[in-house]
């Protein structure tokens, strides 16, 4: 009966389409994923233009007035403008703080994911291409790394190096590289055995040319999927570290730190200082995951029935 179902599906897939076009079409089949993508783009725009659209510069202490502290959402400040999402303990407009915080969170999350991707991909490709001892050694390192929880590794690094933006990025890279390395190695191993690689070798092309021009493009689909989800994960991890007070410095608060700052007020019912940055964080993470989920479905050959 399985053959029957397969036959039916093959018949459905028979109409040929250009791969990119098909990818876009497949992606758009899930309205939820399209929604996620649109939301994420909005989040990115907000982060990029944070300084232009924020009512207040939350880092400029001169603009803050202690009289405005902990105003509920919708309240007017002493200067007469509206705190749409309330203000925090120092009289900072939450909306502005969230916009700026979003910028830092996204920057840290994306940059660490990109660096980890580059590093992990290189390592994974090397392991797959050279095989033998190199492979064993690198993959053993990957296994050991992956057997320890990411938060623990981040804790170790922060404990040894101390905190700061670049140290956090470094910690996030160390946390993530192994996943990329393993993903790339898996698909590169499959590609390496294919005939076109053999052909490229016969043409005496250089190692790096074969690896990066021939093998790498074929490993991209799983990398894209992992990369998307990892951006969300590193944003969440950075927020967690900042929330614990061992992440980004207090001078430029990311979303995690904003949430932590509001924590003590939350118990007395002043929920907005924590909740709104949290909502911003959630919207970011969930929208990325929605996109990632759909990418996984359309790029995974095993699921293409």
């Amino acid at each position, binding site marked *: 009966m399985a053959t029957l179902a397969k036959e039916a599906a093959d018949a459905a897939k028979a109409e040929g389409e250009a791969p990119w076009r098909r990818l876009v079409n497949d992606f758009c089949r899930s309205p939820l994923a399209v929604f996620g993508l649109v939301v994420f783009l909005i989040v990115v725009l907000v982060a990029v233009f944070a300084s232009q659209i924020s009512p207040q510069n939350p880092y400029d202490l001169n603009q803050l007035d202690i009289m405005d502290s902990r105003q509920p959402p919708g309240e007017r400040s002493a200067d007469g403008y509206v705190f749409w999402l309330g203000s925090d303990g120092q009289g900072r407009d939450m909306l502005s703080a969230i916009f700026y915080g979003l910028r830092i969170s996204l920057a840290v999350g994306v940059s660490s994911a990109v660096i980890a991707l580059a590093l992990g991909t290189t390592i994974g490709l090397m392991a797959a291409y050279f095989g033998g001892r190199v492979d064993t050694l690198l993959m053993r390192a990957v296994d050991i790394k992956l057997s320890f929880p990411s938060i623990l590794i981040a804790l170790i690094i922060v404990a040894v190096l101390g905190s700061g933006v670049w140290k956090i990025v470094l910690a996030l890279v160390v946390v993530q590289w192994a996943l990329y390395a393993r993903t790339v190695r898996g698909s590169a191993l499959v590609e390496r055995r294919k005939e076109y690689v053999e052909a490229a070798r016969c043409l005496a092309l250089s190692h790096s040319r074969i690896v990066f021009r021939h093998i790498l493009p074929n490993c991209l689909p799983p990398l894209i999927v992992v990369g998307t989800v990892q951006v969300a994960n590193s944003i969440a991890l950075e927020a967690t570290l900042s929330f614990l*007070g061992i992440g980004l410095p207090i001078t430029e608060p990311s979303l995690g730190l904003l949430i932590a700052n509001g924590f003590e007020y939350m118990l007395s019912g002043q929920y907005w200082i924590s909740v709104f940055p949290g909502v911003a964080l959630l919207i970011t993470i969930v929208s990325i995951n929605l996109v990632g989920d759909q990418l996984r479905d359309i790029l995974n050959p095993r699921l293409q029935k």
Partner: protein
Amino acid sequence: MTVFILRRLMQSFVVLFIMSLLVFVGVYAIGDPVEIFISPEADQIERERAIAALGLDKPLWAQYVYFLQGALSGDLGRSFRFSIPALELIMQRLPATLELTVAAMILSLAIGLPAGIYAGFRPESRLSKVIMAGSIFGFSLPSFWVGLMLILVFAVELGWLPSTGRGEVGTILGVTTSFATVSGIQHLILPALNLSFFNMALITRLTRAGVRENMLMDYVKYARAKGLGMRRVMFVHVFKNILIPIVTVVGIQMGQVLAFAVVTEQIFAWPGMGKLIIDSISNLDRPVIVAYLLVVVIMFIVINLVVDVLYSVLDPRVRLQDMKG
């Protein structure tokens, strides 16, 4: 069996050795051990005495031998803040963390397994879709955020449950635990729920995938052809097969949960070793950090060993002797 366990133990020691080397390099070579092991409040004489005692005037390899000797005899330095041996401090906090971890694991299995079985058995039903949507949230919501929301809803707004600290403890079968008192259990519910959230989602998805995959297998159809009821097919035939990957994941996740207890303990002011490590990092109480790392590594190794043994018990096809380990 014995041979297998012995071999795994040997491997574990190798991993432990490598970890101790890494920790040593991290603390002694990258960081400044004088700063790490000697309290900043110490005066010049104390400082010099300590340097000599720690062997910091010796070459690096000799320092490592010193460190290893200390570690083997259980001496990992003294906490600056509490002035008691770091290891002892960790051990004091360990039971609370273990209790939280185990409670979270039980909770995630108790909810995740039935939810996953249902969603796998009736993938098209509305409840299954709700379960799956919920599991996406369990995956993507940062754990600390979920913790905050639990506090906001159940402690602040509804006032049903306490949000900070550990309740009264009592003894059951000689073990001191929160499970023995009502207040203990009340205090345990929110942190355990918080910590279990991610795993609940993971177990739900894993179970669902396993059920769906196994339901298509010939042996399921064959079992039905024997006239077995759906209940037996599901809970004996399918369940025993999906149990294998689930036990593996639960084992691996045990370590994850242990590590993520750091976050939960911080939010709920749970007096475990996770809260201790964060406090120690903030206070630069480095002997405690080193002790914590080594203890956690040992726990990881033990958990991995237990998972491997369990795995072979559950799956008759896996013979321990054949495993490369």
